[in-house]
């Protein structure tokens, strides 16, 4: 194949450093709809603390129980605020990311229920395992089949950073 000549004005070099840095200053996306779901009580405590911060529309929830064909979640709220409940299916409607947060007592059944429901809707899943004194093998095993990305956090403060980086 004859290559097209690379003209000065058409190559990637044809920009000053300042031009190369320039980007159109307009948002290229609409707000994300993230759901952060704690799978056990230790995770619920951490997620509840984070829920009080300012986020980009993310919902912070706690897995309560399985109900026929669905799961019951409660809204995570720190500081003893009143809580409300919601069905998993309602929360996943329109969601684009589900982040499951697990402590050592995370239930494989809960992870499976949420993971399957998210997969059925084409929603990306991530699993974050909290560090702690107790072994996290059970939490990792619970999340492994159900989270496309699984991270064992080395530091609790990293949870805030990961969620911030994801614009939850």
């Amino acid at each position: 194949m004859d290559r097209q000549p690379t003209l000065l004005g058409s190559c990637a070099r044809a920009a000053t450093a300042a031009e190369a840095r320039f980007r159109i200053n307009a948002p290229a996306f609409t707000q994300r709809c993230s759901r952060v779901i704690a799978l056990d009580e230790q995770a619920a405590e951490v997620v509840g603390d984070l829920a009080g911060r300012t986020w980009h529309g993310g919902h912070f929830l706690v897995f309560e129980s399985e109900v026929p064909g669905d799961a019951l979640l409660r809204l995570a709220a720190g500081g003893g605020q009143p809580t409300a409940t919601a069905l998993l299916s309602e929360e996943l409607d329109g969601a684009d990311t589900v982040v499951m947060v697990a402590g050592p007592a995370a239930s494989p059944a809960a992870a499976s229920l949420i993971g399957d429901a998210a997969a059925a809707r084409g929603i990306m899943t991530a699993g974050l395992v909290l560090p702690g004194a107790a072994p996290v093998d059970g939490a990792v095993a619970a999340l492994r089949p159900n989270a496309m990305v699984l991270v064992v956090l080395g530091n609790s403060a990293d949870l805030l950073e990961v969620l911030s980086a994801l614009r939850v």
Partner: protein
Amino acid sequence: MLKQEINDLLTQTGPGKPMGALFRQYWLPVLLAEELPENDCAPVRVKLLGELMIAFRDTEGRYGLIDEFCAHRGVSLWFGRNEESGLRCPYHGWKYDVSGQCVEIPSEPDERGSSLCAKIKLTSYPLVKLGDVLWTYMGDPAKTPDLPEWEFARVPAGQSFTSKRLQECNWLQALEGGIDSSHVSWLHSDGLRNDPLFKGAQGNKYNMSDRKPFFEVVESDGGLFIGVRRNAEEGHYYWRVTPWVMPSFTMIPPRGDHPIHGHFWIPIDDENCWVFTYDYHPTRPLTDSEVQAMREGKGVHNQFVPGTYRPLQNKDNDYMMDREAQKRGDTYSGVKGISMQDASLQESMGPIVDRTKERLVSTDTGIIMARRKLWRAVEALRDQGVTPPGVDTVHQAVRSAAIVLPKEQPFIEGCGDALTVRPGEKHASV
């Protein structure tokens, strides 16, 4: 997404910057040994962490890395005469040894013993040959760490090959490509079929048959292990495990009995970096055909503009983009070669990517964790003087691995000591 001040913190490595201080805790690859091939050879300009220096090899074979400019009138010592155990400025004959000490001022009455001469010493850093690479340490001499123990630099000669290339963007966005395993199934999909340094491995079949891998990130003492799993035979996963060791070392998981390879991303300044690319085999010499392939730019190496370490495919020629090959599917992006497929896209982000505008997804969690570890280490060093991970040579004794494990087995447990250097033992690879 990162706040602007954190992006600045992580990307600025010049003198006085916190990330610059972090890089100055480590032995860093600075030149290939081939750049100073013999005693009294031509000196080489070096720019590293924003500092301009000259490297030379004196009459006794000692290596020196000193301030580029003569203390007298500021002439670049690249023009110097490398002779009789020192580098002499051609302007007025001032001469420096490998420690930067001025040893002659010919215009002075007593040229060797003048008191003025003894008072002049250029900034200098140690320069040490290990493997195919010359390494330097630019930090506090009182805290000089042990020499590096990276396996690629410690195996016998003939078992290792290293190249380097210029990358025209900030070091961090280049490094992040080495941590971001999710791009491999797309951008590099052609390499597994055709490249002589990859093809033929059983693991390639798993790669090609499962294009939606799952990821696991586990912290290590030196950085992270990033595990990527794909479906293998019934009840099993195929795992590819990439270690990242701070600040900028990564090792790509191996394929079959091919050599293992990986990279070091070293800041030249805030808008350019060197990529040192190594290939080695822990238990056997590289074959002639493997070395030939590496010299020809196969695998993760690349071709160069003759006489330079600038890639032949670069931003001046649009990386020799081939739209027909892109359409045919010969390459996914139209750019040939794994290293330039990566570099072309990373350079296209701009000199320093604006991370306040990025839109990360969950498969970017490895990158998020790496940034977080760097950020934490920078602050711990700056605020409390804590030595960062990766300085301890124990942290450097890592290997990548490609392994098939039962589905229920965590990769860290299943890999066992496969993720650790075992001298004389083969790497774990399928």
